[in-house]
């Protein structure tokens, strides 16, 4: 931020107390669209602000305008006064306004309240007094023209003030039809030029003439690069809006905002039409709650869980713990598969695996078939029958068997499983873990030995040396 900044719009001392600092407020509220935009445009905007001050002072010196008004902090008044006097101009602070807390010098807040204020400094070729800049104290049309407004824009601005308006630019942004609002007009709030007043219309030719003379003078003063940037800005597409008194401008490089006292809050229109053109929604099917309960997991008590959530969570954890084993397997069986939930979770992780289930409870076996689809291989009948059928279906053997040892009838059952499978994974159900606390104790209680080296929180591979229950 430069140490002195132009007021927006000319003439400066408008009807409402916040208006004088709009330029500063909007400049400090620039939010760049990314690091590249910031790296490019932050220094440029700073230089453009300083350039605009230089051009404005030169206009006063050449008597193209009677006076200008710059805002500055208390600590910078002296430097500004000196700068003016080096080009034979008179500068006089005429008004103060409470600035923003974020700018206050830390040491000033208690001892020197004057340092918390921003000061309006009136600058002319002769010593001037505040009333010449006060629309309330003089004919506002005359005041406006004195500060560089074309007559048409001075009249329209004065009308706007009379109607109780304060921020003509925000009022313009608040209109429904924003076509034709030139980027230089909208961004004029930043005090960068070349537009330095509120135009009477979006295509006001007098405004265009004034903007052109601003650019020409800038070039003449040697600000060639800066004027080039202003010309680049002229072509920027711009989004501009005023909602409930907050104005917002959006360009590809940055957005900025300021609070205006302008305009009664307006009812907002519906959400923008653009949303209808975006990617297609995926249809959302909501089954009824019975379907959902069945989907979450049925028959949990029969297979050793307190509720469906516990069963789903546990089986999910088994699959997660056994990720590596599943990755190396081509076939797997869940002995006592209940409603098939574990098999479904395995299939979701390893869709190419050939999966089998055995389940004595015919209702649960049927539920498993429903869950796993028509091609599922869920074998009913007693444990022995199912395992015999399994051996027939998979003569090459099965890579992995998931087993709750508490659901096996006896040691023979485990032996039968071992006869057809290469690795047995023991699963800890709620029932088993409540009783035995952890997998090691569960296994030990049955005389089983687990393969060392795995986390084995809720599942573990049986040691290959274990052929049968002891």
């Amino acid at each position, binding site marked *: *931020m430069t140490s002195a900044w132009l007021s927006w719009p000319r003439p400066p001392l408008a009807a409402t107390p916040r208006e004088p600092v709009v330029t500063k407020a909007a400049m*400090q*509220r620039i*939010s*760049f*669209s*990314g*690091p590249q935009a*910031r790296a490019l445009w932050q220094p440029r905007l700073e230089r453009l602000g300083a350039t605009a001050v230089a051009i404005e002072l030169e206009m006063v010196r050449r008597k193209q305008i009677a006076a200008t008004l710059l805002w500055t902090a208390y600590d910078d008044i002296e430097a500004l006064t000196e700068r003016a006097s080096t080009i034979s101009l008179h500068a006089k602070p005429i008004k103060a306004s409470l*600035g*923003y*807390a*974020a700018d206050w010098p830390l040491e000033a807040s208690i001892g020197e309240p004057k340092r918390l204020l921003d000061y309006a400094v009136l600058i002319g070729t002769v010593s001037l007094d505040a009333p010449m800049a006060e629309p309330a104290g003089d004919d506002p049309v005359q005041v406006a023209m004195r500060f560089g407004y074309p007559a048409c824009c001075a009249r329209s601005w004065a009308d706007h003030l009379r109607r109780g308006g304060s921020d003509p630019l925000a009022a313009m942004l608040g209109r429904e039809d924003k076509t034709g609002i030139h980027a230089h007009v909208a961004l004029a709030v930043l005090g960068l030029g070349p537009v330095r007043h509120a135009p009477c219309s979006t295509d006001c030719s007098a405004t265009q003439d004034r903007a052109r003379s601003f650019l020409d003078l800038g070039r003449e003063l040697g600000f060639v690069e800066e004027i080039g940037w202003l010309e680049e800005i002229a072509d920027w597409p711009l989004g501009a809006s005023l*909602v*409930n*008194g*907050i104005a*917002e401008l959006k360009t590809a490089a*940055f*957005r900025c*905002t*300021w*609070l205006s006292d302008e305009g009664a*809050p307006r*009812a*907002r*229109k*519906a*959400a923008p039409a653009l949303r*209808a053109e*975006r*990617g297609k*929604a*995926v249809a*959302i099917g*909501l*089954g*009824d*709650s019975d379907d*959902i*309960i069945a*989907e*979450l*997991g049925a028959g949990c008590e029969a297979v050793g869980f307190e*509720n469906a*959530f*516990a069963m*789903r*969570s*546990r089986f*999910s*954890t088994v699959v*997660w*713990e056994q*990720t590596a084993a599943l990755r190396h397997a081509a076939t797997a069986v869940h002995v006592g598969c209940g409603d098939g939930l574990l098999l479904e*979770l395995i*299939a979701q*992780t390893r869709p190419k695996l050939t999966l089998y289930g055995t389940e004595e409870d015919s209702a649960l076996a049927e539920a498993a078939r429903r869950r796993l689809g028509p091609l599922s291989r869920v074998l009913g009948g007693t444990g022995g029958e199912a395992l015999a059928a399994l051996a027939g279906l998979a003569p090459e053997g099965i890579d992995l068997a998931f087993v709750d040892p508490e659901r096996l009838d006896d040691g023979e059952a485990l032996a039968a499983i071992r006869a057809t499978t290469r690795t047995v994974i023991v699963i800890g159900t709620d029932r088993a873990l409540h009783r035995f606390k952890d997998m090691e104790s569960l296994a030990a209680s049955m005389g089983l030995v687990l393969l060392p080296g795995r986390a084995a*929180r*809720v599942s573990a591979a049986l040691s290959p040396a274990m052929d049968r229950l002891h």
Partner: protein
Amino acid sequence: MTVEVRPLGDKCNIKCRYCYQEGIRTAGNVPKRYDLDAIMATLDRLAEPFSLFGGEIMMTRRPDLERLMQLGFDRHGGVGMQTNGTLIEELDIELFRKYRVRIGISIDGPGPLNDARWAGSLPATRRATARSEAVIETLCREGMPPNVIVTLNRMNAAPARLGLLCEWIGFLGSLGVRKLRLHLLEQDETEGGEGLALTAQENLAALRQLRRLEQKLPSIQFDIFAEMAAMLRGDDARTSCVFHACDPYATRAVVGVESDGRLGNCGRTNKDGVTHLRASREAFERQLSLYRTPQDNGGCQGCRFFLACKGNCPGTAIGGDWRMRSVDCPVWFGLFEDIETELLASGETVISRSDRRPELEAKMIAAWSIGDNPALHSLLQPAEAP
């Protein structure tokens, strides 16, 4: 201030149908690389505890992730992490323990209740959900129970499913989960998100039921209700960003450290696919405007809860326009009323019914006008009570 480290920006392995970051991904503004040294330098400079965030933070290379965890551990004794949990592996558990990582898992429910967190196809979605569930159980069994972040939507909190959601939360409590953060679905988001949002009445009914659940399950705590009660008491020392007059141009409560180390705003206000950088000055145009704007026009004029609520999160503003109040206003209002009634019944004073409310509002407006945002409790201090 919450510092959210986002090495891969909004990059995520799943695409929740309602995610507020979808706009950014749709616009293709996701960084492909990151500069870890720059990120760490920024974290050094900020000297604040931080959270590993995304997108999905677990897509970060493990050695880099470990350096970030170590930095958090060395400087602040630990680090937060928010993840969907689907990419967590066995080896990560040891890292979490070693660097005291406080994990938050985003999941909306078990199995089908989490289908809004869409991973491309139904099997992939269910697989991802199962992994999240597995990680919650595993962390609990390892003595590191995660916080769980649940977004209420039609898949998990439609009237027919709400009972199941409550039962599941009870189950999480039995596993060892203690804290849940509830989010309302951001209604004005991606096209894919449409149809998932609950109505305001449904949201309110869901939150009321969850509040009753909290009273029945003392081991589980939803942060939102306690925070709302604290705000009504005028105690905003520990409440979250949505109650703190958030400025979407410079979200003070949440700062993102982006892939190149720069500071970004909280992503929830990025509605047009652009991650804007922070403005140089924080300001309160939104709150000043909401205070004076009639409710029919999207403001909060006359609302007795304004000091507590402040129009809530600008990322949830009506029509996606940060200048409006939150689209969830009816939900906040209803809950504030419930909590206000209970606090009054138990003999407590609340700022919404205090004689000092006009004076406090005037002080707050005056402070916001000069760009200051004092804590509510600091305004209350001279008289000590609301």
